[in-house]
């Protein structure tokens, strides 16, 4: 078997995918995302009326002057509550799916998810510390919690990376194992702090369950730079991730420095994860389910997988959040419950109906 054949790896259609098919898949994914976003903007716990919402949206376009008939309050609900939530859901979903795909690629491990290297545990500990011992930030321009969670997530992964390297090995397995060790340690500390400061339990729990509920434009502004940066880095490295699939030694015989690529991609994926965790808490499952579903449909080449994951991740979380805020309306369901409850059976279905293998 030649290297190019192994790089293709898709068992059904070996070799590079025709450009037209690639474009078709990307277009279809974009259409799904657009449909999901539109639906999520139109539907919510408060009925705003399809025509009213469409007119209100159109009215903001330059040179269009329509009266939507929405009251000031309804317009505020649309622009300040519903839209930022849809946008943030899309951004977080895209980043988690992207990070998941990236981790799975560089670690050659189908079970890798964005929280693998201690990002979740680090963010959890830092958020708990901020809630338990942090100063009163109600008068600050920026809330301390997302900043702490972001820093904690990055610190968790950096600790895992440092531990993995000090162990001598720079292989994927060493890194994963040190990630497990760091995560367990950080979680232990977090549990201890929670027990000492049991009045913080409620807020920590609320944070972990996910916070899209109270999303606003400020959170969107907070994550956009990281989303753009990490997406750009991983998009640029998507062919190199394909090369890593053959193993570190063979990759280096092809002139690719596996450890370096892994470091850069992990750094970018960590930034994405940290930003997502900072504004939305710990939303599970997206980082595993979206990349694998995309793989089953479109093959495992990262050339197509990375952009598709970005789009599909966004669409998936937007829809999951739509379910979270409408099924029990006007009450909310935790988003993590929805991603797992609807994601798992959907994934099983895709697994059954697909003739491809992972």
């Amino acid at each position, binding site marked *: 078997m030649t290297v190019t054949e192994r790089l293709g790896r898709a068992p059904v259609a070996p070799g590079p995918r025709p450009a037209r098919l690639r474009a078709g898949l990307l277009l279809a994914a974009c259409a799904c995302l657009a449909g999901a976003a539109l639906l999520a903007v139109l539907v919510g*716990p408060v009925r705003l009326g399809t025509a009213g919402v469409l007119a209100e949206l159109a009215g903001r376009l330059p040179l269009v002057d329509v009266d939507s008939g929405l009251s000031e309050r*309804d317009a505020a609900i649309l622009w300040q509550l519903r839209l930022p939530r849809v946008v943030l859901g899309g951004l977080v979903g895209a980043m988690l799916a992207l990070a998941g795909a990236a981790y799975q690629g560089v670690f050659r491990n189908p079970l890798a998810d964005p929280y693998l290297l201690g990002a979740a545990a680090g963010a959890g500990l830092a958020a708990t510390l901020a809630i338990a011992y942090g100063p009163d930030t109600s008068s600050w321009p920026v809330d301390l919690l997302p900043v702490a969670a972001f820093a904690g997530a990055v610190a968790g992964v950096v600790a895992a990376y440092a531990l993995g390297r000090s162990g001598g090995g720079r292989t994927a397995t060493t890194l994963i194992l040190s990630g497990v060790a760091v995560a367990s340690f950080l979680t232990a500390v977090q549990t201890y702090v929670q027990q000492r400061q049991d009045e913080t339990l409620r807020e920590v729990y609320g944070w972990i369950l996910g916070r899209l509920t109270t999303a606003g434009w400020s959170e969107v502004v907070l994550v956009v730079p990281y989303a753009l940066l990490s997406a750009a880095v991983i998009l640029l490295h998507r062919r190199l991730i394909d090369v890593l699939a053959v193993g570190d030694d063979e990759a280096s015989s092809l002139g690719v420095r596996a450890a370096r690529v892994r470091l850069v991609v992990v750094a970018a994926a960590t930034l994405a994860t940290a930003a997502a965790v900072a504004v939305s808490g710990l939303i599970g499952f997206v980082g595993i389910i979206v990349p694998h579903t995309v793989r089953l449909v479109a093959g495992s080449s990262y050339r197509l997988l990375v952009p598709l994951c970005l789009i599909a991740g966004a669409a998936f979380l937007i829809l999951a959040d739509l379910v979270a805020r409408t099924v029990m309306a*006007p*009450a909310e369901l935790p988003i993590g419950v929805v991603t797992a409850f609807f994601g798992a059976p959907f994934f099983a279905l895709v697994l059954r109906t697909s003739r491809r293998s992972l």
Partner: protein
Amino acid sequence: MRKALVPLLLLALAAAGCGGKTPGDTAESGRQPRRIVSLSPTATELLFAVGAGGQVVAVDSNSNHPADAPRTDLSAYQPNLEAIAGYKPDLVVYSDDPGELKAGLEKLGIPALQQPAAKRLDDTYAQIDQLGKATGHPAEAGRLTETMRAEIQKIAGGPRPERPLAYYHELDKNLYSATSKTFIGQLYAQLGLENIADAADKDGSGYPQLSAEYVVKADPDLIFLADTKCCGQTARTVAARDGWDQVRAVKAGAVVELDDDVASRWGPRIVDFLRLISAKVQAMETVGS
């Protein structure tokens, strides 16, 4: 192990008057508990309110009222039996048993009294009476419930607004709320207030998480924050939330910062709570007319 337990058991039996008796019986037999440990902030407040404060030797880490309660590191969430036994209590009052607390205290022969979260006002009165009997202060307890009943009746019987006012009671930043069927919700109902969370309680938990969209649309006249201590929320942080400037309560300055503790306990301070809410409702009426 068994050898060590026997003298302990004997001691405990002697202290309790004799085996198998409930704390209520102890008091009737004339023996008052002298070393009470409270693992419930509400019970702590009740103990001091019925005049048994002098008999309390230790209270849990969250029992922050009254100020002279002997606060310790004892955790009510994860009670440590050895630590509790270390205070040599002759009565332990607790609200929730997360695991083996009751069984453990029984094994050690320490009389225990459970006072779970009240579901209605009558539960509070019953718990006050129960504590009064158990600690040897039945008369004070009787007077306390009498005063509370009279005060609450007076406050609830005050002038009602012409139009029933709608309110939103916030438990945390993620918009968890309490419906009218909860203890706190029943207190608001005493004043004729309407709860916007009632429509959201599909699963009947009493504590639904509301959508921000819904709260803004429901347009409550009053917002009560029971997350000022836990989560640093104030009238200002609420006004700064996206879209909330459209809410009547925010426009009218009717966002009320509560004491989280008072709003989550079922002790004697609910009278002060009701008085505060009633004053806010009256103030709204004055502004309105």
